[in-house]
């Protein structure tokens, strides 16, 4: 008698994935499918695929699926969840989709506290179109549209979406995980499961950002890509849980504890650099 100890999750189809060798999309797909299976959600789950490398995700998840227009997956998810709150609705979005063209949709979906789960895959580059600069591309990182490296004077700094959304008052579960090592993968799955559990309970909006690799467009072998993620992305994109619905609201320090207004005004107006930011009040 044999016992099946490892198999394909029911929530994945048998369709071979189109992802490049070494790409971590496949891992993340599998984690989602395992969580859906373990929580018994396959028959209630509805996924929303993005525009980007994961555009064909509807072929891989063995559940009802939508294919959304670029960046609008949170709006699509809102529509589905509001009509049928019993559905477990998740979006699967890359960094161009979520952090560039879809910033309005993700911010307001989170701010309305839609009871959906967002899987945000951040590999610091536009993959499908061939390696252009993403909003999450690191400072100095070379891409086809930042051939001399991302110039933060021109393109600004990489956007930290989890931190940005954590600033909203609306309760949410927000975390950043990585899948560049087996230990991190196991950890990521636990966090993802927690995100879905919040939705099952109807508690809050949840988003898990996955740091992910793109060996093809980074020009690295898969092992090199994992090391590059660890060396370059982790310092800028710290892993962790940034917000929980149970957690205290972050409050700024009271004004009384800051230097008083006269101190700020003591900086001579004429000396204020015109193009600089306002960090002159120390």
């Amino acid at each position, binding site marked *: 008698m044999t016992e099946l100890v490892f198999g394909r999750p029911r929530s994945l189809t048998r369709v071979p994935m189109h992802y490049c060798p070494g790409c971590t999309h496949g891992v993340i797909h599998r984690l989602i499918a395992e969580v859906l299976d373990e929580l018994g959600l396959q028959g209630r789950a509805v996924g929303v695929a993005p525009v980007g490398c994961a555009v064909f995700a509807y072929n891989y998840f063995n559940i009802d699926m939508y294919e959304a*227009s670029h960046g609008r997956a949170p709006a699509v*998810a809102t*529509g589905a969840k509001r009509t049928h709150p019993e559905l477990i609705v998740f979006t699967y979005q890359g960094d161009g989709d979520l952090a560039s063209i879809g910033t309005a949709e993700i911010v307001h979906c989170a701010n309305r506290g839609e009871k959906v789960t967002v899987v945000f895959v951040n590999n610091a580059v536009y993959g499908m179109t061939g390696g252009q600069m993403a909003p999450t591309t690191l400072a100095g990182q070379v891409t086809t549209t930042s051939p001399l490296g991302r110039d933060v004077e021109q393109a600004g700094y990489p956007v930290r979406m989890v931190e940005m959304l954590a600033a909203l008052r609306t309760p949410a579960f927000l975390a950043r995980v990585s899948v560049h090592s087996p230990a991190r993968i196991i950890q990521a799955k636990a966090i993802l499961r927690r995100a879905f559990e919040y939705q099952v309970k109807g508690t809050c909006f949840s988003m898990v950002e996955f740091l992910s690799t793109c060996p093809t467009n980074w020009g690295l072998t898969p092992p090199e890509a994992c090391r590059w993620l660890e060396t370059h992305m982790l310092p800028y994109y710290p892993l962790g849980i940034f917000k929980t619905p149970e957690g205290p609201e972050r409050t700024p320090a009271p004004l009384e504890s800051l230097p008083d207004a006269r101190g700020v005004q003591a900086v001579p107006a004429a000396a204020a650099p015109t193009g600089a930011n306002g960090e002159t009040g120390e």
Partner: protein
Amino acid sequence: MARKLMKGNEAIGEAAIRAGCRFYFGYPITPQTEVAEYLARRLPEVGGTFVQAESEVAVPNMLYGAAGTGERVMTSTSSPGMSLMMEGLSYLAGAELPCVIVNVMRAGPGLGGILPSQGDYFQATKGGGHGDYRCPVLAPWSVQEVTDLVQDAFDLADFYRNPVLVLADGLIGQMMEPVEFQEDRRPCKALPDKRAWAARGWKGDRPRAIINSLFLDPEDLERHNRDLKAKYDAMVRDEVRFAEYGTDQDYEVLIVAYGTVARVCKTAQEDLAEAGVRVGLLRPITLFPFPYEAVRRAADKARAVLVVELSTGQMVEDVQMAVMGRRPVHFHGRQGGMLPSPEAVAEQVRAILRDHAAGPSARRRASRRGGAS
């Protein structure tokens, strides 16, 4: 049910509820905001949901998600908002999702103004979004008619699995008129079962629902386009709607106008009749499909055709296509929120008849004369 005096925008909201719509996603914009306000108040009373979206870009995508579960859903907007919705509209058409979108038109281009216009005719009937799609476009001329057409729009949307546009102008939205809701209204189309394709969670009892407009294989996409075309052909065959006034008698000039403008023309027609000038009036109710045949037939009985619009001339192109050069087609338009008066329309008719009496060269001059005069 007794007649009730209602503002057009509120009647649109109530009509949606009567049609079984329980989900509205929208964004405020003058002159249609009362639709959203009305439904924000009314939907919770009937167990429905109102969502104020972050933008008109998000709205049709919310409709996409909501219609994808098989529910009756709608939004309303006005011209600048309609432009923002064009992306989502193309996806809705591509994924064959039924929904109703009401555009209470205001004057453009750009931010334009907030007063009535018919400047979105091309956008509504000839595309607007990218790709090769069509939407039925219904054009009401009264508050009563907008309530009827909104309800029909849901039936048409479900029957064809297609977005349906209701193209009203600011006057329809803002004016109050008596309205009667039919208590025992029957759907205008046989309604298909949506369970076969709606994404409501897959339990293995049907193929997986995939709400999608992506077909990377060109052969697949061509097949999809041809399937859509067959649907649009069926609309052209079965859904043409128009109304005629005074065309059963002899007339010298045929006026073609839609929406509120047709009412102005109707008054002009009555005023002219009192003065012994006989005019026929044809009012397209569906702008897509356009009543080409009816316009051609009615034009054949006249010496000339006059098209009146709140634009610099958009529907006039469809009228020209219908008439095929067999009769001169004249145009009178007002823009920017200005409206033609019955007196001005009557004067246009008289001018056309004077020109025709004066001979061919004067006719050619008259045909070229466009815009407000």
